[in-house]
Protein backbone atom coordinates (compact mmCIF):
# COMPACT_ATOMS: atom_id res chain seq x y z
CA UNK A 1 0.00 0.00 0.00
CA UNK A 2 1.24 3.46 -0.86
CA UNK A 3 2.08 5.74 2.05
CA UNK A 4 0.39 9.13 2.29
CA UNK A 5 3.12 11.73 2.77
CA UNK A 6 3.70 15.44 2.50
CA UNK A 7 5.36 16.61 -0.70
CA UNK A 8 8.45 17.71 1.22
CA UNK A 9 8.77 14.36 3.00
CA UNK A 10 8.08 12.43 -0.19
CA UNK A 11 10.85 14.19 -2.10
CA UNK A 12 13.23 14.01 0.88
CA UNK A 13 12.69 10.28 1.27
CA UNK A 14 12.45 9.19 -2.34
CA UNK A 15 14.76 11.46 -4.36
CA UNK A 16 18.46 11.37 -3.56
CA UNK A 17 21.47 13.15 -5.05
CA UNK A 18 22.75 11.30 -8.11
CA UNK A 19 19.47 9.49 -8.69
CA UNK A 20 17.91 8.84 -12.05
CA UNK A 21 14.58 10.61 -11.80
CA UNK A 22 11.67 10.59 -14.25
CA UNK A 23 9.01 13.28 -13.89
CA UNK A 24 6.41 12.32 -16.49
CA UNK A 25 3.18 13.79 -17.84
CA UNK A 26 2.69 14.44 -21.55
CA UNK A 27 1.66 18.13 -21.63
CA UNK A 28 -1.13 17.14 -19.23
CA UNK A 29 -0.56 16.47 -15.49
CA UNK A 30 3.07 17.56 -15.39
CA UNK A 31 4.34 17.23 -11.78
CA UNK A 32 5.51 20.84 -11.53
CA UNK A 33 5.16 21.24 -7.76
CA UNK A 34 7.28 18.13 -7.20
CA UNK A 35 9.94 19.56 -9.50
CA UNK A 36 9.96 22.78 -7.49
CA UNK A 37 10.36 20.83 -4.27
CA UNK A 38 13.37 19.00 -5.74
CA UNK A 39 14.90 22.42 -6.51
CA UNK A 40 14.11 23.72 -3.01
CA UNK A 41 15.72 20.68 -1.43
CA UNK A 42 18.84 21.33 -3.51
CA UNK A 43 19.24 17.91 -5.13
CA UNK A 44 22.34 17.60 -7.28
CA UNK A 45 23.77 15.35 -10.02
CA UNK A 46 20.39 14.03 -11.06
CA UNK A 47 19.94 12.18 -14.31
CA UNK A 48 16.64 13.64 -15.47
CA UNK A 49 14.51 11.43 -17.69
CA UNK A 50 11.48 12.76 -19.54
CA UNK A 51 10.12 12.59 -23.07
CA UNK A 52 9.28 16.32 -23.19
CA UNK A 53 11.45 18.26 -20.73
CA UNK A 54 9.06 21.28 -20.69
CA UNK A 55 9.24 24.08 -18.12
CA UNK A 56 9.76 21.77 -15.16
CA UNK A 57 13.09 20.48 -16.48
CA UNK A 58 14.11 23.91 -17.75
CA UNK A 59 13.77 25.00 -14.12
CA UNK A 60 15.61 21.98 -12.66
CA UNK A 61 18.41 22.36 -15.20
CA UNK A 62 18.68 26.11 -14.65
CA UNK A 63 18.81 25.50 -10.90
CA UNK A 64 21.79 23.19 -11.37
CA UNK A 65 20.11 19.98 -10.18
CA UNK A 66 20.93 17.94 -13.27
CA UNK A 67 24.03 16.22 -14.54
CA UNK A 68 22.37 14.53 -17.49
CA UNK A 69 19.15 14.71 -19.51
CA UNK A 70 17.52 11.71 -21.20
CA UNK A 71 14.78 13.01 -23.49
CA UNK A 72 13.20 13.18 -26.92
CA UNK A 73 11.80 16.71 -27.37
CA UNK A 74 12.99 19.69 -25.37
CA UNK A 75 10.93 22.75 -26.21
CA UNK A 76 8.32 25.07 -24.78
CA UNK A 77 5.26 23.64 -26.57
CA UNK A 78 3.62 26.19 -28.85
CA UNK A 79 6.03 28.91 -27.67
CA UNK A 80 9.63 28.12 -28.58
CA UNK A 81 12.87 27.21 -26.85
CA UNK A 82 13.63 26.10 -23.33
CA UNK A 83 16.23 28.76 -22.67
CA UNK A 84 17.73 27.22 -19.54
CA UNK A 85 18.15 23.88 -21.33
CA UNK A 86 19.74 25.71 -24.26
CA UNK A 87 22.05 27.70 -21.99
CA UNK A 88 23.20 24.50 -20.32
CA UNK A 89 23.85 22.73 -23.62
CA UNK A 90 25.22 25.71 -25.53
CA UNK A 91 27.23 27.35 -22.72
CA UNK A 92 27.52 24.83 -19.86
CA UNK A 93 25.58 27.16 -17.54
CA UNK A 94 25.13 26.68 -14.62
CA UNK A 95 26.98 23.43 -15.30
CA UNK A 96 27.56 21.09 -18.26
CA UNK A 97 24.62 18.89 -19.18
CA UNK A 98 25.16 15.51 -20.77
CA UNK A 99 22.45 14.58 -23.29
CA UNK A 100 21.05 11.15 -24.10
CA UNK A 101 18.74 11.84 -26.96
CA UNK A 102 16.02 9.66 -28.48
CA UNK A 103 12.83 9.94 -30.48
CA UNK A 104 9.43 9.85 -28.76
CA UNK A 105 8.82 6.34 -30.07
CA UNK A 106 12.15 5.21 -28.67
CA UNK A 107 11.60 6.81 -25.26
CA UNK A 108 8.07 5.43 -25.00
CA UNK A 109 9.33 1.96 -25.80
CA UNK A 110 12.15 2.29 -23.30
CA UNK A 111 9.56 2.90 -20.58
CA UNK A 112 7.48 -0.02 -21.87
CA UNK A 113 10.51 -2.31 -21.59
CA UNK A 114 11.14 -1.04 -18.07
CA UNK A 115 7.53 -1.58 -17.04
CA UNK A 116 7.63 -5.05 -18.61
CA UNK A 117 10.77 -6.21 -16.83
CA UNK A 118 12.58 -6.63 -20.15
CA UNK A 119 16.11 -5.35 -20.80
CA UNK A 120 15.21 -3.84 -24.18
CA UNK A 121 12.44 -2.97 -26.61
CA UNK A 122 12.24 -3.32 -30.36
CA UNK A 123 10.90 -0.73 -32.79
CA UNK A 124 11.16 0.45 -36.36
CA UNK A 125 12.90 3.66 -35.54
CA UNK A 126 15.71 6.13 -36.11
CA UNK A 127 16.30 4.91 -39.67
CA UNK A 128 18.64 7.15 -41.62
CA UNK A 129 18.95 9.63 -38.77
CA UNK A 130 22.08 10.94 -37.06
CA UNK A 131 20.71 10.07 -33.61
CA UNK A 132 22.49 6.73 -33.34
CA UNK A 133 25.82 8.46 -34.02
CA UNK A 134 25.53 10.37 -30.75
CA UNK A 135 23.34 8.12 -28.63
CA UNK A 136 24.90 4.87 -27.42
CA UNK A 137 21.53 3.46 -26.34
CA UNK A 138 20.39 2.73 -29.90
CA UNK A 139 21.44 -0.60 -31.43
CA UNK A 140 20.41 -2.95 -34.22
CA UNK A 141 18.59 -6.20 -33.45
CA UNK A 142 17.75 -8.95 -35.93
CA UNK A 143 14.41 -10.75 -36.10
CA UNK A 144 15.15 -14.45 -35.54
CA UNK A 145 12.29 -15.43 -37.86
CA UNK A 146 12.58 -13.04 -40.83
CA UNK A 147 16.15 -11.78 -40.61
CA UNK A 148 14.91 -8.20 -40.74
CA UNK A 149 17.09 -5.73 -38.87
CA UNK A 150 15.21 -3.46 -36.47
CA UNK A 151 16.19 -1.04 -33.74
CA UNK A 152 16.62 -1.93 -30.08
CA UNK A 153 16.61 0.52 -27.19
CA UNK A 154 17.38 -0.42 -23.59
CA UNK A 155 14.80 -0.35 -20.83
CA UNK A 156 14.49 2.75 -18.69
CA UNK A 157 14.57 1.83 -14.98
CA UNK A 158 14.53 5.15 -13.10
CA UNK A 159 15.37 5.13 -9.41
CA UNK A 160 12.22 7.11 -8.89
CA UNK A 161 9.27 8.17 -11.03
CA UNK A 162 7.23 11.21 -10.05
CA UNK A 163 3.82 11.85 -11.62
CA UNK A 164 0.80 14.00 -10.88
CA UNK A 165 -2.72 12.55 -11.00
CA UNK A 166 -6.23 13.79 -10.40
CA UNK A 167 -6.92 11.73 -7.29
CA UNK A 168 -6.18 8.82 -5.03
CA UNK A 169 -8.13 6.92 -2.40
CA UNK A 170 -7.02 6.29 1.17
CA UNK A 171 -5.38 2.99 0.16
CA UNK A 172 -3.15 4.86 -2.28
CA UNK A 173 -4.90 3.69 -5.44
CA UNK A 174 -4.28 6.43 -7.99
CA UNK A 175 -6.61 7.46 -10.79
CA UNK A 176 -5.74 9.69 -13.74
CA UNK A 177 -7.64 10.42 -16.92
CA UNK A 178 -7.52 12.53 -20.05
CA UNK A 179 -4.21 12.28 -21.85
CA UNK A 180 -2.44 9.57 -19.85
CA UNK A 181 0.90 9.73 -21.65
CA UNK A 182 3.55 7.36 -20.31
CA UNK A 183 2.80 7.81 -16.63
CA UNK A 184 1.72 4.23 -15.98
CA UNK A 185 4.84 2.93 -17.70
CA UNK A 186 7.09 5.36 -15.83
CA UNK A 187 5.72 4.31 -12.42
CA UNK A 188 5.86 0.60 -13.26
CA UNK A 189 9.40 0.95 -14.67
CA UNK A 190 10.77 2.80 -11.64
CA UNK A 191 12.14 1.32 -8.43
CA UNK A 192 10.23 3.89 -6.34
CA UNK A 193 7.41 6.25 -7.15
CA UNK A 194 5.80 9.38 -5.80
CA UNK A 195 2.39 10.44 -7.03
CA UNK A 196 1.13 13.94 -6.26
CA UNK A 197 -2.65 14.24 -6.53
CA UNK A 198 -5.25 16.98 -6.56
CA UNK A 199 -7.22 15.26 -3.80
CA UNK A 200 -7.77 12.09 -1.81
CA UNK A 201 -11.31 10.74 -2.07
CA UNK A 202 -13.19 7.97 -0.29
CA UNK A 203 -13.91 6.06 -3.44
CA UNK A 204 -12.51 6.22 -6.96
CA UNK A 205 -15.58 6.26 -9.16
CA UNK A 206 -14.85 4.67 -12.52
CA UNK A 207 -14.10 7.29 -15.19
CA UNK A 208 -14.00 6.88 -18.97
CA UNK A 209 -10.45 6.55 -20.13
CA UNK A 210 -9.05 6.47 -16.61
CA UNK A 211 -5.86 4.68 -15.75
CA UNK A 212 -5.69 3.24 -12.25
CA UNK A 213 -2.46 2.45 -10.51
CA UNK A 214 -3.19 0.16 -7.54
CA UNK A 215 -1.72 1.32 -4.26
CA UNK A 216 0.56 -1.71 -4.06
CA UNK A 217 2.65 -0.50 -7.03
CA UNK A 218 2.99 3.09 -5.77
CA UNK A 219 5.48 4.00 -3.04
CA UNK A 220 3.97 7.26 -1.80
CA UNK A 221 1.12 9.65 -2.50
CA UNK A 222 1.16 13.36 -1.62
CA UNK A 223 -1.84 15.66 -1.83
CA UNK A 224 -0.77 18.74 -3.79
CA UNK A 225 -3.74 20.69 -5.17
CA UNK A 226 -2.68 22.57 -8.28
CA UNK A 227 0.47 20.46 -8.40
CA UNK A 228 0.48 20.40 -12.20
CA UNK A 229 0.18 24.17 -12.78
CA UNK A 230 0.88 25.81 -15.23
CA UNK A 231 0.14 22.54 -17.05
CA UNK A 232 -3.35 21.24 -16.51
CA UNK A 233 -5.35 18.59 -14.69
CA UNK A 234 -8.35 17.53 -16.74
CA UNK A 235 -11.52 18.08 -14.72
CA UNK A 236 -9.71 20.39 -12.24
CA UNK A 237 -8.06 23.30 -14.05
CA UNK A 238 -6.94 24.36 -17.52
CA UNK A 239 -3.49 24.85 -18.92
CA UNK A 240 -2.17 28.34 -18.21
CA UNK A 241 -0.96 29.08 -21.71
CA UNK A 242 -0.07 32.61 -20.63
CA UNK A 243 2.44 31.30 -18.13
CA UNK A 244 4.11 29.20 -20.83
CA UNK A 245 4.48 32.40 -22.88
CA UNK A 246 5.70 34.34 -19.82
CA UNK A 247 8.28 31.66 -19.09
CA UNK A 248 9.92 32.51 -22.39
CA UNK A 249 10.96 35.90 -21.05
CA UNK A 250 11.57 34.80 -17.46
CA UNK A 251 13.94 32.08 -18.65
CA UNK A 252 15.54 33.96 -21.51
CA UNK A 253 18.32 35.50 -19.46
CA UNK A 254 20.20 34.27 -16.43
CA UNK A 255 19.37 37.28 -14.28
CA UNK A 256 15.60 37.04 -14.60
CA UNK A 257 15.76 33.28 -14.15
CA UNK A 258 17.90 33.65 -11.04
CA UNK A 259 15.42 36.16 -9.65
CA UNK A 260 12.60 33.67 -10.29
CA UNK A 261 14.64 30.97 -8.56
CA UNK A 262 15.18 33.17 -5.53
CA UNK A 263 11.45 33.47 -5.04
CA UNK A 264 10.65 29.78 -5.45
Amino acid sequence: MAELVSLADGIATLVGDGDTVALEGFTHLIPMAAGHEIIRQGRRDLTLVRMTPDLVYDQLIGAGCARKLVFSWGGNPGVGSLHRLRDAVEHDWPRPLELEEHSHAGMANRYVAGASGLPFAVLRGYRGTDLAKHTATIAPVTCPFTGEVLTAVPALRPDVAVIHAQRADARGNVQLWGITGVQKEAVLAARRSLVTVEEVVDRLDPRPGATVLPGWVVTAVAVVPGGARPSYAQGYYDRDNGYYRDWDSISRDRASFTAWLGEL
Partner: protein
Amino acid sequence: MRWTADEMMTVAAARALVGRTSCFVGIGLPSTAANLAKRTACPDLALIYESGTIGARPTRLPLSIGDGELAETADAVVSVPEVFNYWLQPGRVDVGFLSAAQLDRYARINTTLIGPDYRHPKVRLPGAGGAPEIAASCREVILVVRQNPRTFVDRVDFVTSVAAGAWVITDLGELAPDPDTGELVLTRLHPGVCVPDARAATGWDLRVAATVARTEPPTGTELSALRELLAAS
Protein backbone atom coordinates in the same frame (compact mmCIF):
# COMPACT_ATOMS: atom_id res chain seq x y z
CA MET B 1 -10.43 39.05 -49.72
CA ARG B 2 -6.67 39.59 -49.52
CA TRP B 3 -4.51 37.00 -47.87
CA THR B 4 -0.98 36.52 -46.57
CA ALA B 5 1.62 34.03 -47.82
CA ASP B 6 1.21 32.08 -44.57
CA GLU B 7 -2.52 31.85 -45.14
CA MET B 8 -1.97 30.60 -48.69
CA MET B 9 0.45 27.97 -47.38
CA THR B 10 -1.98 26.76 -44.75
CA VAL B 11 -4.85 26.63 -47.21
CA ALA B 12 -2.73 24.71 -49.74
CA ALA B 13 -1.68 22.25 -47.03
CA ALA B 14 -5.29 21.75 -45.94
CA ARG B 15 -6.28 21.03 -49.53
CA ALA B 16 -3.56 18.39 -49.73
CA LEU B 17 -5.49 16.32 -47.20
CA VAL B 18 -8.55 15.86 -49.41
CA GLY B 19 -9.36 12.19 -49.86
CA ARG B 20 -7.25 11.09 -46.92
CA THR B 21 -8.73 9.15 -44.01
CA SER B 22 -6.17 9.78 -41.31
CA CYS B 23 -3.43 12.29 -40.57
CA PHE B 24 -0.72 12.17 -37.91
CA VAL B 25 -0.33 15.82 -36.99
CA GLY B 26 2.83 17.57 -35.87
CA ILE B 27 2.52 20.78 -33.88
CA GLY B 28 2.65 24.28 -35.40
CA LEU B 29 1.96 24.90 -39.09
CA PRO B 30 0.85 21.30 -39.76
CA SER B 31 -1.68 21.41 -36.92
CA THR B 32 -3.22 24.63 -38.24
CA ALA B 33 -3.55 23.15 -41.73
CA ALA B 34 -4.98 19.83 -40.51
CA ASN B 35 -7.54 21.61 -38.37
CA LEU B 36 -8.47 23.86 -41.29
CA ALA B 37 -8.92 20.79 -43.53
CA LYS B 38 -11.27 19.27 -40.97
CA ARG B 39 -13.36 22.47 -41.02
CA THR B 40 -13.47 22.69 -44.82
CA ALA B 41 -13.09 19.83 -47.29
CA CYS B 42 -12.29 16.89 -44.96
CA PRO B 43 -14.77 16.81 -42.07
CA ASP B 44 -14.26 13.05 -41.60
CA LEU B 45 -10.47 13.20 -41.48
CA ALA B 46 -9.13 11.43 -38.38
CA LEU B 47 -6.57 13.67 -36.70
CA ILE B 48 -4.02 11.76 -34.65
CA TYR B 49 -1.71 13.56 -32.24
CA GLU B 50 1.31 11.98 -30.60
CA SER B 51 -0.24 12.67 -27.19
CA GLY B 52 -2.48 9.67 -27.94
CA THR B 53 -5.63 11.46 -29.09
CA ILE B 54 -7.14 9.67 -32.09
CA GLY B 55 -9.92 11.34 -34.05
CA ALA B 56 -9.74 14.63 -32.15
CA ARG B 57 -12.13 17.46 -33.11
CA PRO B 58 -10.79 20.55 -31.33
CA THR B 59 -12.99 23.64 -31.53
CA ARG B 60 -9.96 25.90 -31.35
CA LEU B 61 -6.40 25.40 -32.44
CA PRO B 62 -4.47 23.48 -29.79
CA LEU B 63 -1.40 25.33 -28.49
CA SER B 64 0.33 22.04 -27.73
CA ILE B 65 -0.16 18.50 -29.04
CA GLY B 66 -1.49 17.58 -25.60
CA ASP B 67 -4.24 20.12 -25.02
CA GLY B 68 -7.20 18.95 -22.95
CA GLU B 69 -9.66 19.59 -25.72
CA LEU B 70 -7.96 17.02 -27.91
CA ALA B 71 -8.71 14.36 -25.31
CA GLU B 72 -12.24 15.60 -24.67
CA THR B 73 -13.24 15.48 -28.34
CA ALA B 74 -11.31 12.40 -29.51
CA ASP B 75 -12.82 9.09 -30.61
CA ALA B 76 -10.21 7.39 -28.47
CA VAL B 77 -7.40 8.44 -26.16
CA VAL B 78 -4.59 5.93 -25.90
CA SER B 79 -1.25 5.92 -24.12
CA VAL B 80 1.78 7.46 -25.79
CA PRO B 81 3.43 4.05 -26.29
CA GLU B 82 0.25 2.78 -27.92
CA VAL B 83 -0.08 5.69 -30.33
CA PHE B 84 3.43 5.08 -31.60
CA ASN B 85 3.33 1.27 -31.58
CA TYR B 86 -0.20 0.34 -32.62
CA TRP B 87 -1.18 3.39 -34.66
CA LEU B 88 1.86 4.99 -36.23
CA GLN B 89 4.43 2.21 -36.66
CA PRO B 90 2.36 -0.29 -38.72
CA GLY B 91 1.81 2.25 -41.49
CA ARG B 92 -1.94 2.50 -40.98
CA VAL B 93 -1.96 6.32 -41.05
CA ASP B 94 -2.38 7.89 -44.49
CA VAL B 95 -0.48 11.14 -44.06
CA GLY B 96 2.19 12.40 -41.73
CA PHE B 97 2.16 16.18 -41.47
CA LEU B 98 5.42 17.68 -40.27
CA SER B 99 7.44 20.89 -40.20
CA ALA B 100 11.21 21.42 -40.00
CA ALA B 101 13.84 23.92 -38.87
CA GLN B 102 16.13 22.84 -41.70
CA LEU B 103 15.43 20.80 -44.80
CA ASP B 104 17.66 19.63 -47.62
CA ARG B 105 16.83 18.73 -51.22
CA TYR B 106 16.20 15.07 -50.25
CA ALA B 107 13.75 16.03 -47.53
CA ARG B 108 16.15 15.24 -44.74
CA ILE B 109 14.90 17.21 -41.76
CA ASN B 110 16.82 18.83 -38.94
CA THR B 111 15.06 19.83 -35.74
CA THR B 112 18.01 19.06 -33.44
CA LEU B 113 20.63 21.79 -33.60
CA ILE B 114 22.36 24.48 -35.64
CA GLY B 115 26.12 24.33 -35.89
CA PRO B 116 28.82 21.74 -36.45
CA ASP B 117 29.33 20.46 -32.88
CA TYR B 118 26.74 18.16 -31.32
CA ARG B 119 28.19 18.68 -27.85
CA HIS B 120 28.15 22.47 -28.05
CA PRO B 121 25.79 23.58 -30.79
CA LYS B 122 25.35 27.16 -31.83
CA VAL B 123 21.62 26.78 -31.32
CA ARG B 124 20.11 23.83 -29.58
CA LEU B 125 16.68 23.01 -31.09
CA PRO B 126 14.04 20.82 -29.40
CA GLY B 127 15.09 17.54 -31.00
CA ALA B 128 13.34 14.64 -32.65
CA GLY B 129 10.02 14.22 -30.85
CA GLY B 130 7.79 11.99 -32.93
CA ALA B 131 9.19 13.09 -36.27
CA PRO B 132 11.66 10.29 -37.20
CA GLU B 133 8.96 7.64 -36.97
CA ILE B 134 6.17 9.85 -38.37
CA ALA B 135 8.40 10.51 -41.39
CA ALA B 136 9.25 6.82 -41.79
CA SER B 137 5.90 5.17 -41.03
CA CYS B 138 3.09 7.17 -42.63
CA ARG B 139 2.02 6.09 -46.10
CA GLU B 140 2.69 9.62 -47.32
CA VAL B 141 4.53 12.54 -45.70
CA ILE B 142 3.78 16.19 -46.28
CA LEU B 143 6.03 18.91 -44.94
CA VAL B 144 4.65 22.35 -44.23
CA VAL B 145 7.57 24.77 -44.02
CA ARG B 146 8.15 28.44 -44.71
CA GLN B 147 10.60 28.68 -47.61
CA ASN B 148 13.75 30.73 -47.00
CA PRO B 149 17.48 30.10 -47.32
CA ARG B 150 17.92 29.55 -43.57
CA THR B 151 15.48 26.63 -43.67
CA PHE B 152 15.98 25.27 -47.20
CA VAL B 153 19.66 24.45 -46.88
CA ASP B 154 22.22 22.71 -49.03
CA ARG B 155 23.19 20.47 -46.11
CA VAL B 156 21.37 20.02 -42.82
CA ASP B 157 23.50 20.28 -39.68
CA PHE B 158 21.92 17.11 -38.26
CA VAL B 159 19.66 14.50 -39.83
CA THR B 160 16.86 14.25 -37.29
CA SER B 161 14.31 12.62 -39.60
CA VAL B 162 14.30 11.31 -43.13
CA ALA B 163 11.17 12.24 -45.04
CA ALA B 164 12.39 10.80 -48.36
CA GLY B 165 9.55 10.90 -50.88
CA ALA B 166 7.76 13.67 -49.00
CA TRP B 167 5.98 16.50 -50.68
CA VAL B 168 6.68 20.04 -49.38
CA ILE B 169 4.17 22.86 -49.14
CA THR B 170 5.61 26.30 -48.48
CA ASP B 171 4.51 29.92 -48.38
CA LEU B 172 5.72 30.24 -51.97
CA GLY B 173 4.55 27.04 -53.63
CA GLU B 174 5.05 23.30 -53.58
CA LEU B 175 7.93 20.91 -54.16
CA ALA B 176 7.62 17.24 -55.08
CA PRO B 177 10.30 14.55 -55.22
CA ASP B 178 11.73 13.57 -58.60
CA PRO B 179 10.60 9.94 -58.97
CA ASP B 180 14.09 8.82 -60.01
CA THR B 181 16.46 10.78 -57.81
CA GLY B 182 14.17 11.81 -54.96
CA GLU B 183 15.34 15.40 -55.30
CA LEU B 184 12.73 17.99 -54.43
CA VAL B 185 11.58 19.88 -57.53
CA LEU B 186 9.46 23.02 -57.62
CA THR B 187 6.13 21.95 -59.12
CA ARG B 188 3.70 24.67 -58.11
CA LEU B 189 3.70 28.36 -57.25
CA HIS B 190 1.16 30.27 -55.23
CA PRO B 191 -0.52 33.31 -56.82
CA GLY B 192 1.87 36.25 -57.25
CA VAL B 193 5.03 34.20 -56.72
CA CYS B 194 7.52 33.67 -59.56
CA VAL B 195 10.29 31.10 -60.06
CA PRO B 196 13.09 33.52 -59.16
CA ASP B 197 11.33 34.19 -55.82
CA ALA B 198 11.42 30.46 -55.06
CA ARG B 199 15.03 30.09 -56.16
CA ALA B 200 16.06 33.05 -54.02
CA ALA B 201 14.38 31.43 -51.02
CA THR B 202 16.20 28.13 -51.49
CA GLY B 203 19.71 27.42 -50.25
CA TRP B 204 20.48 24.93 -53.00
CA ASP B 205 20.25 25.22 -56.78
CA LEU B 206 16.50 24.60 -57.01
CA ARG B 207 15.27 22.46 -59.86
CA VAL B 208 12.04 23.57 -61.49
CA ALA B 209 9.55 21.24 -63.15
CA ALA B 210 8.91 21.64 -66.90
CA THR B 211 5.39 22.72 -66.08
CA VAL B 212 4.86 24.68 -62.89
CA ALA B 213 1.25 24.69 -61.76
CA ARG B 214 -0.37 27.73 -60.25
CA THR B 215 -2.26 27.40 -56.95
CA GLU B 216 -5.86 28.55 -56.87
CA PRO B 217 -6.14 31.49 -54.47
CA PRO B 218 -7.79 30.80 -51.13
CA THR B 219 -11.56 30.93 -51.36
CA GLY B 220 -13.56 33.16 -49.10
CA THR B 221 -14.75 30.07 -47.25
CA GLU B 222 -11.23 28.81 -46.70
CA LEU B 223 -9.98 32.17 -45.49
CA SER B 224 -12.92 32.72 -43.16
CA ALA B 225 -12.51 29.26 -41.67
CA LEU B 226 -8.79 29.79 -41.15
CA ARG B 227 -9.19 33.21 -39.56
CA GLU B 228 -11.96 31.99 -37.32
CA LEU B 229 -9.75 29.10 -36.26
CA LEU B 230 -6.81 31.36 -35.44
CA ALA B 231 -8.96 34.01 -33.76
CA ALA B 232 -10.46 31.41 -31.39
CA SER B 233 -7.01 30.33 -30.18
